[in-house]
């Protein structure tokens, strides 16, 4: 590559932007191993006391459990629902389905606070407030657009005639989908599932309105804690969540590479 002054300026600028993107999420990790009650950098002494505080706190542990369980269930439910919907959108020629597609993408477009008070309204009348089922259902709704978009991307790169061949050879629709289509769009489905998982894990505002009592999510507790004071325990939790997202990006990348091979 020819190195000129404009291109040097470009790389320099891009480097700074990337630092701006990455440094904040990395800075939390060393802070989480600090011994100090107040945040300072570099930490005066290293310790794992904030991790201990997290893992021995009954409240934080209960919240972490709720969040993980809700996120797993959300992914398990939203992925098949979203995949079926994406399949229908992809294979349908009717205008009706086109317009219904916009409804399915709405959870992504409507500002989250409006979604939150809407869900609160429905739950207050159906007894789903402060239940795990309620949390899962809301997170399924919120993550459906992400699953649909991910799976649609996979289906667009897939040649549907293969499935037709399987069906003309006597397989029914479901079997031919399972045997022929699904293995080839697996990476997109996995990405959709990971999106659903992370959407549920990260959701805060709806949980703020609808969770309570025994079933509070981790992010709800974090949010209220952050509003009151900057507790270093949050640094430990944040680091764990960030490590989890590193892992998920790696998983998504790996599933994509496998499907390329």
């Amino acid at each position, binding site marked *: 590559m020819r190195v000129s002054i404009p291109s040097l300026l*470009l790389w320099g600028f*891009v480097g700074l*932007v*990337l630092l*701006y*993107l*990455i440094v*904040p*999420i990395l*800075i*939390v990790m060393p802070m989480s191993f600090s011994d100090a009650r107040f*945040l*300072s*950098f570099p930490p005066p002494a290293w310790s794992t006391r904030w991790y201990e505080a997290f893992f021995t706190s009954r409240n934080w542990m209960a919240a972490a459990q709720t969040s993980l369980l809700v996120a797993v269930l959300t992914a398990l439910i939203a992925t098949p*629902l*979203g995949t*079926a*919907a994406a399949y229908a959108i992809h294979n349908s*020629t009717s205008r009706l*389905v086109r317009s*219904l597609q916009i*409804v*399915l*993408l*709405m*959870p*992504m*477009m*409507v*500002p989250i*606070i*409006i979604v939150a*008070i*809407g*869900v609160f309204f*429905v739950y207050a009348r159906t007894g789903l407030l402060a239940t795990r089922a309620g949390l899962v*259902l809301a997170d399924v*709704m919120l993550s*459906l657009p992400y699953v*649909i*978009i991910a799976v649609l991307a996979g289906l*667009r790169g897939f040649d549907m005639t293969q499935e037709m061949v399987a069906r003309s050879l006597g397989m029914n629709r479901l079997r031919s989908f399972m045997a022929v289509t699904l293995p080839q769009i697996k990476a997109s489905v996995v990405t959709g599932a990971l999106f659903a998982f*992370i959407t549920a*894990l*990260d959701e*805060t*505002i709806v949980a703020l309105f609808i969770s309570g009592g025994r079933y509070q999510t981790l*992010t709800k507790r*974090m*949010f209220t804690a*952050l*509003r009151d004071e*900057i507790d270093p325990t*949050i640094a430990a939790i*944040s680091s764990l*969540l*960030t490590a989890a*997202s*590193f892992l998920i*990006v790696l998983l998504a990348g790996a599933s994509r590479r496998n499907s390329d091979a």
Partner: protein
Amino acid sequence: MSVAQATLARDDVMDIAIRHARREQGTMLLLLAPALVVVAVLLVLPLGWLVWQSFWNDGLTLEHYRRIATDPAYWTSFTLTFRISFLVTGLALLLGYPVAYAALKLPPFWANVVLALVVLPFWTSVLVRAYAWLILLQRTGLINEALAGLGLIDQPLELAYNELGTIIATVHILLPFMVLPLYATMQKIPGDLVQAGASLGGTPLHVFWRVFLPLSMPGVIAGTVLVFILCLGFYITPELLGGGRVLMVSMIVSRNVELYAEWGAASAVALVLLACVGLLFFAASRLISLERILGAR
């Protein structure tokens, strides 16, 4: 086979084909149904209720909307929200375009590194990032300590708990939503067009300006609309980094519900916000497809 028989047979075939197509469409609707029911019950239905609430106060009324139009507090919040959204979108475009462009120009390995660095924050919790910015920006935060340590400042700078802190953290969260559609669009620009421009004697800057930039406009529109709309509805970041001083529209909605149980007022504000978002989406969908904005294509 007589002509009449042949016609009959053709009609039969057509009939079967039409019936088959109908059944096919029926199956598709059935597959769509479960997802649709979830969204309809949890989102479409309550939206209808919000519309109703916004016109109701012991009888049909436009009072809630009148208050939004006349009460300066609402006006302040809406102008603040739009100002922040404009600034954030502009900054995201300014920072994001070169990053997408660089990812396009770099050799595959480095391009992947750049994209991974863009995607990583995208997958990281919004709360974690708000917390990180508080650590960095507050009065006793790392940036202030570093600047003081270098002897550059005597007084800590007010970086957090105000509009500035909100904007810094919001751009951080929304930047990937700008870079990814930009990169996707740039990738589809045929390289020979740029080469043709160069071979016709254009300087690199000239070719960029006349050929590459116009061809990347769909990505610019997609990213800009997405970032602007997401920013209009932001809640967590201004709540945590605004220090109670940056009252965006979302926060007005939640305060009306949580503090005052004013469902009518909250509904009206929510619907005005939703109308802004809807209009922007509609306007953008005249230029490029909705799926493109949302990353479906």
